[in-house]
C-alpha cells in the first residue's frame, strides 16, 4: 500500500468510527488535520483570530456533516473544501464591510490575474538583501497581496502540497483553470520578489 493509500485507509476507519458518534475518533481526525487547515486558513484570511475561528468552524461543520462524507473521497480534500468555502465567505463579508477595492472582482478572470496591478515596493534597498529570512518575510507579504483565487491555488499547491485534481475539486473549477491560476500566481510573485529571488539563488 502506498503512503497516500495508507493514510486514506487509516482515515476511513476513523471516519467510520466518528460517524458512529465516537468522539475519540473525531478528536483524532481533528488532531491530524487542524494545523494543516489552520496553516492554510491563516494565509487566506490574513488574521490569526479569524483564522482560529474559521478553523474551529471547519471542524464543527465537518462534525455536523460527517454523514454525507463518502469514504471513497479524501478526508484531506473534504476538509480543505469546507475551509475554502468558509474563507471565501469570510473574505466577501470583509470586502463588503470595509468597502475594499484593492481586491479585483472575482467575476473578471483577466483582472484577477493582477498582472497589471503590481505596486512597486518603494522601500526596496538591494544592499540589505542578504538572507533568505528576508525573502520569507517578503513572500508572506506578497502572498497577502495576491487576489483571493490566485492565493488559494498557490497555497494549496505549493504550500500544502495538494494535487491539481484535489484543488479542482476543492475550488469547483476545471483542471485547466487551476493550472492557469497557479501559473499566474507564480508569475505575479516572481515579478514582485525578483531581486530577492536572485539573491536566494
Amino acid at each position, binding site marked *: 500500500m502506498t503512503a497516500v493509500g495508507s493514510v486514506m485507509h487509516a482515515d476511513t476507519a476513523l471516519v467510520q468510527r466518528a460517524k*458512529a458518534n465516537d468522539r475519540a475518533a*473525531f478528536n483524532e481526525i481533528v*488532531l491530524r488535520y487542524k494545523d494543516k487547515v489552520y496553516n492554510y486558513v491563516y494565509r487566506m484570511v490574513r488574521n490569526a483570530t479569524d483564522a*482560529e475561528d474559521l478553523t474551529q468552524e471547519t471542524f*464543527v461543520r465537518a462534525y455536523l456533516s460527517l*454523514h*454525507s462524507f463518502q469514504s471513497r473521497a479524501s478526508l484531506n480534500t473534504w476538509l480543505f473544501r469546507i475551509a475554502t468555502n468558509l474563507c471565501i465567505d469570510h473574505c466577501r463579508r470583509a470586502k463588503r464591510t470595509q468597502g475594499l477595492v484593492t481586491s479585483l472582482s472575482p467575476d473578471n478572470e483577466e483582472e484577477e490575474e493582477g498582472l497589471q496591478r503590481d505596486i512597486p515596493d518603494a522601500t526596496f534597498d538591494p544592499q540589505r538583501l542578504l538572507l533568505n529570512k528576508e525573502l520569507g518575510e517578503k513572500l508572506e507579504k506578497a502572498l497577502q497581496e495576491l487576489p483571493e483565487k490566485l492565493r488559494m491555488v498557490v497555497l494549496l499547491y505549493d504550500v500544502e502540497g495538494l494535487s491539481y485534481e484535489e484543488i479542482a475539486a476543492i475550488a469547483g473549477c476545471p483542471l485547466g483553470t487551476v493550472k492557469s491560476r497557479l501559473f499566474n500566481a507564480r508569475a505575479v510573485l*516572481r515579478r514582485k520578489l525578483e531581486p530577492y529571488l*536572485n539573491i536566494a539563488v
Partner: protein
Amino acid sequence: MNRPFANWDNRDCERIQGLLSDYTDGTLSARQTWEVERHLADCRACAAQAQQMKALVGALRSVERRSTPDDFMLKLHAQLDALGPVPQAQRSLLARWRDEWLALRNVLSLRRVSLVGAGLAAVGLLLFFVVGRPTSTSSSNTTNGTNTAAHLQQALERHVATAAGDPLDDPTAERLAAPLSLDSEGNGSE
C-alpha cells in the same frame, strides 16, 4: 555552450517562459523539457527567470508552518458539547438505512453478503419455515441446506436477544422478528 546574445525570437522566449512553471514542477513531457533546457542553455534572460521560479517554489514549500493556539481543542470540544449528538433528522434516510445495514451485516457475521444475497437468504428462510422443518432434530443433521437455515435461525435469535441490551438504537431487531414483508420504509408488517 553559452551564447548570451543568441538570436532567439521573442516568441520563443514567450513560449518557453510559459512553460517554466511546469518545468519547475517537473511535469513537462520529455520533448518539452528538452526544448526548454536547450533554450535556457542559450538565453540568459530565460535562464534567470527559470532560476527565480525555482527559488520561488522552494521558498513557498518551506514557508513557516503555523499551528493552532494551545486552547484550540478545548474550545472546539466546548462547541461540540454544546451541539450534542448530531440529530437524526439531519441525516438522510439513505444514510440511516446504509448505517443500519452495515450494523446488521456485522452482527450476522455475513460481511460479504450483498443486499441481493441477503434478500435471497431471507427468501430461503421463508421457504424453510413454510415448507417445514426437517424430521431429524438431532445435531447430527449434516445436509448443507438445513445447516445453513439452522445457522441463520440461530444467528437471528442471538441478534434479537442481544440487541435488546445494546446501548445504541437498533430498530433492525423489530424487523427481523417479523415475517418477511417490508414496506419501502423498511418497516415489517404481519
